[in-house]
């Protein structure tokens, strides 16, 4: 059982590193095909994603549109991976002026919609005429005419105007308009022929839907400006606003083709997976194999490759290793066997001067599921140099006896960072220093089935996400003096630690271990923090096919939005 979990765990870890297990899919075949000439623009190809992704370009006051909630209602996740627009379903411009959108992206945006993607444009001083849309590709896509030039005045209403559904609206309008959702500032938009007003604000269009090419576009004229007196419900505070905006997102994304699964990896680029012939030839001598053998072998994750790589990295009979065990670790993990343990034991010894190999050996030893390695891993826990690898090894080994010690390690790591206030408040620099060991320990506890593990990880995740933002912001400083530079260097180093910890946490959550399914569902049912909601959705998305027996009913009842959709 443990071994099965281990394999599924490490398999999903590969996903996070950008390796799709669907290596034999048509998409892979397409990537393996001879490259087309550079001058020829490749046809737009939609990429299949488990849940629809929304790309957002935000301007000032974007947060008042409550896009997090709207996305959640629409069952969509946010992505900032603008290099891969083909993964997206909808693009949202939230009061975003064209000077926030590079020209190439404006052209891509047009192509995105042309090919079936959705676009939702939200109003504001950075949108439409004032945002510089006039004359840009965005103007062409829009279902409305931009009547106000960028220097024009926006019509406003001192008493505000109310939202109301259009008589001919073809969107479902199950919203409570009797609450009199009010807007104070809006932009005057004139629907183009064929466009349809779905919602009015006073006598002006508030939501206009239309199409462009194969895609759908929604233009919203509402601005989140104004100072409503007591008793007035501004539209952004209206309880049904996220649902209305969510509906706009859903509608806009409705024409987006399903797409196909693709293999992507920034690291592998145009590398081709190792062929069967290559694997069988050359007697596994590095000298006689292609230059990128290891990298390409990693694109072919199967047992045969794993064994071949193990022989290269940990040869028997006193031969010299021909590649680093750490470089092939991810390819070996799913196929580790008890029989490997002894072979790895030598590499894991304190005497081994190659720290990276030692660390990889310890991790892999745990994945071998050989109970006899337990003392070695427990001993390694005390050694700072290999502590994290030992934690990983223990997490794969699955011996619950390790739980008390791992808890102690978790507490010890965070002790220097603790503030009396608790919660997500930590001494910043010590927290950054503690983040990696804390995450490794927390993930190990999670995999070992510790009942408090999910809660612990959730709390840690919310702190980590915050501190990552704080440290990234701080590392944007440009001090000129040497002392300031030294401080900046330190901040950047700590930021990198936090980044690594966050990435480890994200990957370590996947897949949800069977032993944690119940705790995970309970936790997911009550979580509110948008970033954690995204994290949970992401984890569920990646675990879906690995927890077929999990009963998500409770979660579906308790939660709405994307988590509910995932649970179905």
């Amino acid at each position: 059982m443990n071994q099965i979990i281990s394999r599924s765990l490490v398999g999903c870890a590969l996903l996070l590193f950008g390796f799709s297990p669907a290596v034999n899919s048509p998409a892979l075949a397409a990537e393996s095909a001879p490259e087309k000439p550079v001058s020829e623009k490749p046809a737009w190809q939609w990429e299949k994603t488990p849940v629809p992704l929304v790309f957002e370009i935000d301007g000032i006051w974007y947060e008042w549109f409550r896009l997090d909630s709207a996305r959640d209602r629409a069952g969509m996740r946010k992505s900032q991976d603008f290099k891969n627009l083909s993964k997206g379903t909808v693009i949202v411009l939230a009061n975003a002026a064209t000077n926030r959108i590079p020209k190439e992206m404006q052209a891509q945006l047009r192509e995105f919609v042309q090919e079936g993607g959705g676009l939702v444009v939200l109003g504001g001083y950075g949108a439409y005429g004032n945002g510089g849309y006039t004359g840009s590709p965005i103007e062409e896509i829009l279902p409305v005419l931009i009547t106000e030039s960028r220097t024009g005045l926006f019509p406003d209403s001192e008493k505000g105007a109310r939202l109301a559904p259009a008589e001919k609206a073809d969107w479902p309008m199950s919203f409570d308009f009797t609450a009199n959702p009010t807007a104070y500032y809006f932009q005057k938009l004139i629907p183009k022929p064929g466009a349809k007003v779905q919602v009015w604000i006073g006598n002006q269009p508030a939501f206009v839907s239309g199409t462009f090419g194969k895609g759908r576009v929604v233009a919203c004229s509402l601005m989140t400006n104004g100072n409503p007196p007591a008793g007035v419900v501004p539209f952004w505070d209206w309880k049904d606003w996220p649902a209305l905006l969510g509906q706009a997102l859903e509608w806009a994304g409705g024409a987006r083709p399903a797409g196909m699964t693709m293999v992507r990896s920034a690291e592998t680029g145009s590398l081709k997976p190792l062929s069967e012939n290559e694997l069988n030839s050359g007697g596994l001598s590095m000298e006689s194999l292609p230059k990128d053998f290891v990298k390409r072998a990693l694109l072919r994750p199967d047992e045969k490759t794993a064994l071949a790589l193990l022989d290269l990295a940990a040869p028997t009979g006193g031969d010299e290793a021909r590649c680093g065990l750490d470089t092939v670790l991810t390819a070996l993990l799913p196929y580790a066997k008890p029989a490997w343990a002894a072979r790895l034991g030598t590499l894991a010894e304190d005497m081994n001067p190659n720290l990276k190999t030692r660390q990889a050996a310890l991790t892999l030893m745990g994945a071998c599921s050989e109970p006899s390695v337990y003392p070695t891993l427990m001993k390694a826990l005390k050694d700072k140099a290999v502590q994290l690898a030992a934690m990983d090894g223990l997490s794969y080994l699955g011996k619950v006896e390790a739980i008390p010690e791992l808890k102690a390690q978790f507490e010890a790591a965070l002790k220097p960072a603790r503030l009396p206030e608790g919660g997500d408040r930590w001494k910043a620099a010590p927290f950054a220093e503690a983040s990696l060991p804390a995450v490794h320990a927390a993930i190990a506890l999670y995999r070992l089935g510790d009942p408090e593990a999910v809660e612990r990880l959730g709390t840690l995740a919310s702190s980590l996400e915050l501190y990552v933002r704080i440290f990234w912001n701080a590392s944007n400083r440009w001090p000129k003096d040497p002392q300031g530079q030294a401080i900046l260097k330190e901040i950047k180093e700590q930021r990198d630690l936090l980044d690594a910890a966050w990435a480890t946490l994200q990957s370590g959550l996947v897949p949800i271990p069977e032993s944690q399914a119940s705790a995970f569902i309970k936790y997911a049912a009550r979580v509110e923090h948008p970033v954690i909601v995204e994290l949970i959705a992401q984890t569920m998305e990646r675990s879906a096919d690995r927890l077929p027996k999990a009963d998500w009913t409770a979660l579906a009842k308790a939660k709405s939005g994307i988590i509910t959709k995932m649970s179905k």
Partner: protein
Amino acid sequence: MPILWWETSRLTMCVRQNMWRGLAGLAFCGGLSLIFTSPVAAGVMKLTRPAEGSAVIEDVGAPGGKGLAIKIEEKPGNLVFGLQWTPAPGLYRVGLPLRLHLKPGFNSRRLKMKAAFGTVEKDGGKQGEKSWLTFPISPSQLDATPGVWTVLSHSVTIDAVSGKELTLSYSFAEDKVAKNQGKRAKSVFVVKKPKLNDLDTLDESPAQKEGMDVVNRIGADAPVPVESLDYAAILVGDVSLEPITTTLAVEKVWPEYVHVYPGGSNPVVVTVRNFTAQETEAVVTLEMKTGLAESAPVGEQRVRVPASGVVRVPFAWKAGTRDYGYAAMAIVSVAGKPVHSNAEYFSVSTPIWKTAIQGNGFLDWYGRESTIPEHVDGIRRSYCNVEEAFSWQPSSWTDLNPTQNDWWAGQCDFHNSRKGLQDWVALSHSNGIKMITYSWATASGKRGFDIGRRFPDTLCRETGGIAPQIDLNDLDVYDIGHDRPELWEYHSGNWLSNFMNLGLLRTIHMHAEEVIKSAKTFGWDGIRFDYPPSWSPMGTADVQREFEMLGVKDVIKELMPEDFASTNAVWSGEAISRRNVRYFRYLFKKELGENFALSYNVGSLVQVHTNKPLMVWFGEMSRNQGQLMNEAIRGVGSIPHYADVALWHAEAVRTLGGYSCVFQAERSPDGLASVYSAVFTFASGAHPYLDYGWLGAKPGFYSQFMTRYGEYCWDLALAPVAAEKVGLSVESKLPLLWEPYLRQRQTGDGLLQTVVHLISAPEADPAKAALKSQGQWSRAVLVRKTCKSEPDVWFLTAEPELTAIRLRPEKSDKGYAVTVPSVHFWSMLVWSEKP
């Protein structure tokens, strides 16, 4: 060896007081000679010679004809001399003779010096030095006249027998390049354990033996003529020691406030110290001096001063309507005979701009709260009477009323706290220092943008809307971080802001409301508009609609009689700008009182008085005694140009009824930029903004001097006159600048007063100016003036210390003449006569 150290804190206090020149200034104050000779004989502290790198020189100008030459090394140096000195308790004046022996082209600007008098304590095998008088020395304090020595004079209190081991130490560091900054000076010459010679047989303590040993060794050297030195050197003469009093001393005179408005109270506490071992009965008299020779008794109190102790004597005093500088002068008398006196200075005015010496309120560092007492202490010691809290507010225009305990200033993201701000204002006010709030026409930071979202019309728009490229992540993080001290040091310092639409009266009204509420909460005494509220034309219909909307139609009608009924389609930019200034002024004076001061930054490098539209605009802001700041001047490189700009600005503003305020020439490469910035700021009639380095080594105590005698530079009635017209001439061997600064006024008692500024001309050649950090002092300057009756002529100067001397006029051809004994960088004559 506990000699003086147990009295450290008191000594420190004395040294501080000394730095203010409280003692020095009374010598001539009000025309009275108030140095009382003590029966204790004056002493000379013989210098011992350092081990090497120096020479004994003979120089006719040196005290005693001899001195030591210290070679200026191309590295930081430290030099320790031995001294032999056993003074009785008392107040002393220490004189340090110095001269620089430099070769042409030597960059003396790089030379920074410090003198430190200290005790040497031996604790077991360890030896430690502790200073009891330390002062920095700048080359600009020394006369550059060939062969002339300058005696730097400082007073110090010794209230117990000091023992027999004192060390005089000098540190000289040539600040060659910035790379040396921050490194501790290494010892180049150190005499710690000189050999004992046959004087050992004398019945002296080891300490005395050490000193005498070295003295003997110096004596053994054959002096060389100073001209023979082929290297740059600092020449040091024997230190003189002059007792001021060894019985009773007025140790401190302390007016509670450095500035009060007319009619305000300013209690004064006089501290008298008894150096003798017997309790002494004495009389303490306080009088208040102002103008040149105006004096009014405050009170007289009989006190018993305990043996070797102090007594503090309080006096009540309330200002009348007479404004400008005051000296609170205390005299202690025993048996009817004055023993010692001392004085301290403050000013009286409204608005504060009339006597303003502005401090540096850029407290923009983390944890500044702990430094506020020290900061305010420094401001007071600098005689700064007003300070601007720069960019403290969450949003410079839209939020001056933070609701949190901690927040980030919208501009520059400075960390601020309610407690810190309240402490700063309260402590400043307890010293009479007025606090000005900063204003910049943007909604800034998280708070500013939140308000901007609610009232978007008050914000300006640009291509891309409002703040189209603002760093949204910064704004998000702002909210997360500002209540969390553990994250403060990770707060990134971006200025997130959007300009306000000052064409709308509601934008003006919004800011006024913020300022008024803030002033009532924090106690602001004024405001400085870093961006004066000027704007472009606006449609008349919209303008008038706003009057109705805000319910201020009648107010505007009264404030803007020339524009209110305009039938033009638009209100001109001038009218909108005028409306803004007047409306602000109206609301501030109405809500915060007449003393509330207004300042505007109107940086300009041109001759404003020739630019009519600018003069009209400046006139609007100057009206009702506004201050007009010229920030542009800070970038001027040439000192002669700086002098021109300062004078143009000050004179233009004066004619408009306002007060001029300038920066020092911060970016000037001139070696004397700091000195001349002070001289030309004051001589032109302007007021300084930020710290010109008042507490550093300067040739004079300018801020103290201006606190007392600023009237003769700042009075708006002092109008320029042509020398020829008033029949005034100046004869000096060295070039002096005086004609552009010649001014006259009629005094209240019917006298015609002519103020003559005598300024050593700055170096015009930039290349030479960059290397120059010393001035050559003029001597025996003859000033003649056509005059029918004998005038009353006062010589006033801040150099080297506050001095006011009544000169004796001699009959000349068509009038009278006076001889000014010496002019360092800047001195003044105030020539009063019957018209």
